[in-house]
C-alpha cells in the first residue's frame, strides 16, 4: 500500500497526523526539539498557561503507580506575558506549525484575559481551555464539574478570540456528556478529554501521602479504557470534534481512540517515559493502518 493518509482536520486546521503531545508533558517543546524534529507532530499543546506566573505546588509532586503515575505539579508556568515574550519566540525557531495554546485560570476573567492575549499570536492555532486541572484549588476543575460553569468559561473565551476554542474536560464528574453539551451550546469549537483522574498514593514507610499536595492527577496506560469510554460517550453526544487523550502509548491506541470518536489524539505520560514516544507513534502509524486496512485516518473517526 505505502500511501496511507494520516491527515486530519481539527476545527478547520489541517494536521499532517492526529498526534498531539498533551499539555504538561512537553513543556514548550525545546527539550524534545533537542532530540528530534518536532515538526513531525500534528501539533502540540504547550504547558498550561495562566494570567500570572505560578511556581505550582510543593514537592514531591510525582508518584509512581501501576501502569501510570500521579502528578500534582499545579500549573507551574511563567505567566501569559512571558509565554508570549519569551517562550513563543523561542518555540518559533524549532516548530513551524500552528501550536495549541493550553490555558487555565482561577476566575472566568482570568481565562478571558489569557485567551485574549494569546488570540493575537499568529503561532497559536487553537486555544485549549483547561477547565479540568485537579491540582489547583478554587479553579481549574471546579469550572469543569458543573455544566453552567463550563459554559460560562466557554462563552467568556469565545467572546475574546476568533481562534478555535477547545474545552478540556475532567473525567472526575458524574455526567461528562452534560458538561460537553453545555460547552457545545456555549459555542465551543471542540472538546478535549480526558484530563487526569484524581488519585492518591501513601508511603508505607512514612505512613503519609507520597505527594506533598496529598492528591494528584493519575495518568498513564492504566486510564486508557476510561478515556475510550468517555471519548465514545462525548463524541456520540456532540457535533463538534473531540480530541481524545488518556494513557495513549501506541499507534494502536491512537486508532482505538479515533474509532471511539476522536478527531485527533493527545499523548501525555508516555512522553515522560520515552521522550521519543510521539515520534515513534507517528512513524508506526502507517504500518498499523495497513495492518488494519485503514487507507485514511479521517475515515475511521467514530466508526465504533
Amino acid at each position, binding site marked *: 500500500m505505502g500511501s496511507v493518509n494520516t491527515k486530519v482536520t481539527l476545527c478547520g486546521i489541517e494536521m499532517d497526523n492526529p498526534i498531539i503531545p498533551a499539555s504538561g508533558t512537553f*513543556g514548550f517543546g525545546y527539550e524534545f526539539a533537542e532530540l528530534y524534529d518536532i515538526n513531525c507532530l500534528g501539533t502540540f499543546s504547550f504547558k498550561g498557561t495562566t494570567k500570572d506566573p505560578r511556581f505550582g505546588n510543593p514537592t514531591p*509532586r*510525582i508518584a*509512581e503507580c501501576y501502569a501510570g*503515575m500521579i502528578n500534582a505539579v499545579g500549573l*507551574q508556568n511563567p505567566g501569559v506575558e512571558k509565554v508570549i515574550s519569551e517562550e513563543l519566540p523561542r518555540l518559533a525557531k524549532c516548530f513551524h506549525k500552528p501550536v495549541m495554546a493550553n490555558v487555565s485560570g482561577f476566575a472566568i476573567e482570568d481565562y478571558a484575559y489569557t485567551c485574549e492575549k494569546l488570540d493575537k499570536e499568529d503561532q497559536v492555532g487553537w486555544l485549549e481551555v483547561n477547565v479540568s486541572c485537579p491540582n489547583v484549588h478554587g479553579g481549574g476543575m471546579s469550572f469543569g464539574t458543573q455544566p453552567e460553569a463550563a459554559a460560562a468559561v466557554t462563552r467568556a473565551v469565545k467572546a475574546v478570540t476568533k481562534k478555535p476554542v477547545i474545552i478540556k474536560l475532567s473525567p472526575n464528574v458524574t455526567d461528562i456528556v452534560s458538561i460537553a453539551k453545555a460547552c457545545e451550546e456555549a459555542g465551543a469549537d471542540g472538546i478535549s478529554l480526558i484530563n487526569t483522574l484524581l488519585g492518591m498514593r501513601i508511603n508505607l514507610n512514612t505512613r503519609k501521602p507520597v505527594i506533598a499536595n496529598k492528591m494528584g492527577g493519575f495518568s*498513564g496506560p492504566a486510564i486508557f479504557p476510561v478515556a475510550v469510554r468517555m471519548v465514545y460517550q462525548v463524541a456520540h453526544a456532540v457535533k463538534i470534534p473531540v480530541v481524545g487523550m488518556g494513557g495513549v502509548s501506541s499507534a494502536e491506541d491512537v486508532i482505538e481512540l479515533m474509532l471511539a470518536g476522536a478527531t485527533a489524539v493527545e499523548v501525555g505520560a508516555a512522553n515522560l*517515559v*520515552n*521522550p521519543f514516544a510521539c515520534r515513534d507513534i507517528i512513524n508506526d502509524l502507517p504500518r498499523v493502518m495497513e495492518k488494519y486496512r485503514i487507507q485514511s485516518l479521517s475515515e475511521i473517526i467514530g466508526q465504533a
Partner: protein
Amino acid sequence: MKQGIFEIKSNIALTATVYKMVLVGDTSDVTAPGQFVNILLDGLFLRRPISVNDCVGDELILIYKVVGKGTEQMAKMTAGQTLDVLTGLGNGYDLSKAGDRPLLIGGGVGVPPLYMLARQLREAGKEVSVILGFNTKDEVFCEADFKALGCDTTVTTVDGSYGVKGFVTNALPESYTYFYTCGPEPMLKAVYKATVTDGQFSFEERMGCGFGACMGCSCKTVTGNKRICKEGPVLTKEDIIWEA
C-alpha cells in the same frame, strides 16, 4: 541527552544494601561528574534516576542503594542483561571553581557521584580532601576508591563504629579553597551552615521524566525557579533557598 541500550558487565554488592553496576554502551552524552541517568525497568512506569559514579570510555558505573521496587529489580540483574538508559541528564559539578585544595563531602548514597569528580580533580592536579559520612561501619563503601586516587580521605560514622565519630561536619578541615557536596538534605543543610567557602550542592527530588519536560522536580532558587533534573541537580551555595 541520549537514549541507549546498555549491557550489564557486572553488578556486585558493596554493602548489605548498596550495589555497584558496570554498564557498557554509548556514554558520549555523559559530560560532567554529578550528572545522572534514568533507567527503564520491567513493570515499572517511571524511569529510575541514578547518579553516575564514574564514566570511562564506554563503561558507565552506577552505585545505588536498594530503596524500593526499582532498585530491588536492579540488584537482582546479572551480567549480560540489558537496560534502556537515558544518559547525560542534569548539569553536573563545575570543576572550574575548585581552586587548588577543594573539599568533597558525601553522605551515604550521596558519596558515589563525588568519585568521578574527585578523579577529574586529581587528574587536574588538585589537592583533594574527602569526607565520607555513614551511619555505621557496616554501611561504609568507596573509602578505598578515594584513597586510591590520592585524596586525603576521612570517614565519619554517626555511631562511632568506624573513623571519626559524628557527622561529616565534625570532620571539616580548617582550610579548603572550595567544596562540593552530595547527601541527604539534613546533611546538606548542616554543610551549608558549617562551611566557610562557596560550594556546590547536589540535590535529590522525586522526578517524573528526568529531562525537564514535566516540572515535577522544581525548586525555588535565588535566581528563579529551577528543575532539579535540568538546571540541577547541582546548585551553587549562593543560589539555594531552603524551604522551611
